[in-house]
């Protein structure tokens, strides 16, 4: 009983490890402070530039840290947070995602009546949550990251509150998100009850160190964790919120939701599965495989039924989540202690590769949508600007934009020489390496099904003159502006970046492959 009275020993903090989070949170708070003290002194471009600079700074710091200790993990806060190749690579991605989102949103803030400083602060706060999730080595820290990400996102969507669809979207996301958080928390409690710890590496070591009977408490805990995180990454059957929320949210925010928020969810999932409960992989692998099957199939089939491009992309984002699950399900056949220390190996590195590539494709695609949405805006505020018919003949009005969108869509379809193909290839390779032949084949077949959905958009854009009836409603069709004319330069830059990454990684994937190989999970003992 004497131990209970022990004084609380505060853990040593390795501040240098936490610099990316500090940058993000600091900038968010600073922006809020300035905005509330001197609201008029802050034009929208200041907020945008600050956000971009902060995102870039976080990414650069993470890259520097990668150079310093990338291959040897550096834990801090008593092993509750770890900075390793996995978390640093994802931090770079999150930083880039924040910068791109800010670029795209800059021109759209007015349209959605969103206050620039608040938007920027919420974006940065959610990014800080995502960075925490990527490096969390403790279930409680993971939950903190998850909540900072989610709560900031609920408000971010609701910020465009003048539009009923955005309000509805935020409400839906909030209610279901709160449910899933509760599931996750309950799962944490059950896992703690079964293993006596919340530290992920500690749980893993405990499970490998003891001989036990089937532990239903632990299995229930794992299942609940899967439900909670499955909701975050919109895996079927926890996906019902995604299409509505994606459709209702402002396009730049949707891009962020579909890429960075999803990547953070998958990062957490990878850590929980491959660090904490790897020893139970025989129990959770079938569940992940089943989730992957369902996610791939539903995402692809529902995508081809959509007549709204934004909603189609929402479903396609679900099917991409299925591909990441295919990667994550590639547990090596003999999953013992030796495999555990590899930190996930091919399963994790292929998933990370897919997430990075997919994030750029999604950010780029929704950036295009944001630009087109501004152009095709119809008089009534809540009518969808993204009906497929309105994309008819886009190639004539905006040849370069249509080409960029085509590249991004073909990449999502997995056409070779784009990054999307290499990503699918990596995931399939991981699955086959773990004897998941059927899953690999099904994944590729669903890729063909969703290719059909992307092709419909491409075909509509390149439809010849006269085949679309509503050319006259669209202002720019009459104005006949040339090429990029009139498009916001910030969005143009973001789209170009996404297309460049998609093409360069598609042709020369070696560097990114090496990075993702190094991005295995570390196990802190």
């Amino acid at each position: 009983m004497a131990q209970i009275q022990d004084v609380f020993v505060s853990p040593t903090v390795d501040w240098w490890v936490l610099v990316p989070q500090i940058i993000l949170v600091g900038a968010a708070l600073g922006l809020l402070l300035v905005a509330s003290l001197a609201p008029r002194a802050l034009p929208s471009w200041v907020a945008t530039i600050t956000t971009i600079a902060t995102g870039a700074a976080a990414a650069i710091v993470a890259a520097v840290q990668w150079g310093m200790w990338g291959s040897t993990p550096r834990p801090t806060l008593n092993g509750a947070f770890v900075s390793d190749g996995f978390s640093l690579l994802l931090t770079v991605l999150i930083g880039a995602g924040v910068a791109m989102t800010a670029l795209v949103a800059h021109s759209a803030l007015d349209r959605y009546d969103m206050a620039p400083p608040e938007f920027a602060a919420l974006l940065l706060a959610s990014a800080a949550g995502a960075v925490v999730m990527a490096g969390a080595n403790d279930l409680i820290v993971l939950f903190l990251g998850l909540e900072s990400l989610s709560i900031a996102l609920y408000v971010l969507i609701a910020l465009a509150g003048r539009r009923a669809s955005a309000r509805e979207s935020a409400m839906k996301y909030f209610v279901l998100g709160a449910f899933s958080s509760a599931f996750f928390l309950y799962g944490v409690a059950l896992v703690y009850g079964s293993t006596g710890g919340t530290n992920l590496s500690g749980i893993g070591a405990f499970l490998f160190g003891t001989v036990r009977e089937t532990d239903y408490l632990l299995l229930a805990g794992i299942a609940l964790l899967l439900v909670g995180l499955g909701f975050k990454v919109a895996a079927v059957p926890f996906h019902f919120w995604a299409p509505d929320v994606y459709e209702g949210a402002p396009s730049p925010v949707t891009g962020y939701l579909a890429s960075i928020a999803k990547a953070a969810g998958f990062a957490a999932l990878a850590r929980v599965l491959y660090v904490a409960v790897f020893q139970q992989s025989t129990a959770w692998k079938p569940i992940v495989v089943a989730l992957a099957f369902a996610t791939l199939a539903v995402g692809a089939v529902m995508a081809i039924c959509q007549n709204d491009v934004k909603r189609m992309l929402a479903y396609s984002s679900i099917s991409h989540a299925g591909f990441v699950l295919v990667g994550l399900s590639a547990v090596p056949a003999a999953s013992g202690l030796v495999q555990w220390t590899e930190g996930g190996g091919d399963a994790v590195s292929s998933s990370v590769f897919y997430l990075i590539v997919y994030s750029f494709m999604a950010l780029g695609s929704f950036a295009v949508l944001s630009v087109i949405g501004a152009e095709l805006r119809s008089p009534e505020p809540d009518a969808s600007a993204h009906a497929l018919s309105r994309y008819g003949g886009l190639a004539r009005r905006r040849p370069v934009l249509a080409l960029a969108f085509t590249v991004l869509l073909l990449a999502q379809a997995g056409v070779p020489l784009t990054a999307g193909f290499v990503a699918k290839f990596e995931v399939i390779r991981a699955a086959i390496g773990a004897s998941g032949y059927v899953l690999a084949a099904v994944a590729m077949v669903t890729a063909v099904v969703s290719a059909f959905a992307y092709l419909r958009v491409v075909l509509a854009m390149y439809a010849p003159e006269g085949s679309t009836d509503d050319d006259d409603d669209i202002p720019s069709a009459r104005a006949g502006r040339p090429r990029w004319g009139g498009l916001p330069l910030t969005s143009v830059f973001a789209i170009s970046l996404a297309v460049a990454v998609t093409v360069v990684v598609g042709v020369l994937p070696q560097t990114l492959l090496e990075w993702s190989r190094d991005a295995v999970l570390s196990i802190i003992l």
Partner: protein
Amino acid sequence: MGSLLAASGSASDFPLLNALIFVPAVGALLVALLPRSRPDLARPLGTLFAAIGGALALALAWQFDAADAGFQFVSQQSWIPALGISWHVGVDGISLWLVVLTSVVVPIVLAGVDPHHDPKPYTAWMLLLQAGSVGAFVALDLFLFFVMFEVVLVPMYLLIAGWGYEGRRYAATKFFIYTMAGSALLLVAIVATAVLGSPDSGITFDLQTLAEGQLLGENTARLCFAAFAIAFLVKVPVVPLHTWLPDAHTEAPTAGSVVLAAVLLKLGTYGLLRFGLYLFPEASDWAAPVLVTVGVVGVIWGAITAAMQRDLKRLVAYSSVAHMGFIVLGIFAFTAQAVGGGVIQMVNHGISTGALFLLVGMLYERRHTRQIDELAGIQSAAPVYAGVFTLIMLSSVGVPGLNGFVGEFLILIGSFETRPVWTIIAATGVILAALYLLWAYQRVFHGPPAAADRQTADLRRGELLTLAPFVIAAVALGVYPKPLLNAVEPAADKLLEHFEEYSGFEVPEPGDPVVVNHGDDAGEHDEDGH
């Protein structure tokens, strides 16, 4: 092996195969970058780049050492070392003529067929098609092959969707989805082959390493082969995977149809040889009865369906199904003549069917119809056109003295030794081919011409020039096919040796009396080879 290295060492100072891929690709890029105000430059510039490719291909054929059965002009560069993927290209007797065919046909149709609108993207896509097809034929790395195999899809899809006829969007999408579905399984099988079949030194996608190693287990190899075969059979196509072909061919613009028939279909049969027989010898032997059957079904089905068509272009499309069925039969008969004949037939089918599509396209330009019912007596109004059509048609039927005969004859002779029953059934397809083509000819060119028929203009000089290479090739290769055969034979022999070594199938060889022990139907042996 030493001689191979020496031979290719002297010839490969200039990376000819890479140039064959990159010249059209660079051309496509340049055409795409042309200023909007000068669309008239697109076709001349594109044709120039395509023609440089064609000239390089002819140089390749000239420098090719026919006596050498191995891969020549080999070029290998590291590409994605993390996955054991390299840019590895080479050409042997099997791929040589397909490379030449591709590189020559594209500039001809680019120069000879007017796209009617948007010449800039049209030319760029055609050039990309040329680059991708050549790349697929020379790729010696599974990953590289798959990339090229898929890259070809996009330009073809956009050509059909952008420049085709009424039902083009449906046809283009159907074409894309069918082929993509096949290649989805192909990708899984390629990855499985590399992951499970690589030597211990690390994962590799190199075709030669994997094929010479033969490290896959029997069942795995069979499953992988099945996936490869399905992807290629969709492309060939065989019945019942062929339904995309009539639509795609009919709705595609003329140039698209020509390239589709002359080049893209060959990717399927070429794939069966290079990535079927070579990579999975045992599994090929195991699956041969099924594949021979679908080939023969294709021959008969294609011929009968062709006879029933009212649309001239659809008729030619179905005749393709029949011709390609012959090639599948030849490949899986596993004799030197049949395999060699299959390769020859690939080239000849490209020449004759490509020219037929050109001719039908020219007729459509004049009459804006392809319905056989609406045409009659064209012969009297356009005698030159009718003459060229007759010659090409006879070459397609396989009349001796024209190119179509050589391949079909070799396939039938070679196949008879190992698959006599199927060969006899397939031989009736030759008769059916004569029937449907001659019947269509009779209806379109003979009979009393209506007023519109009487005003059908004859071939112009430009069109004659476009057709001339096809006509010359049809006659020349019919009379003197030796250059073609000389290059193909050593490669086919070598492939069958490899096949024999790993499959346990005894390949009957007419030149080698020791091996012949079940070739009692030996009457055919003296007919060829000497």
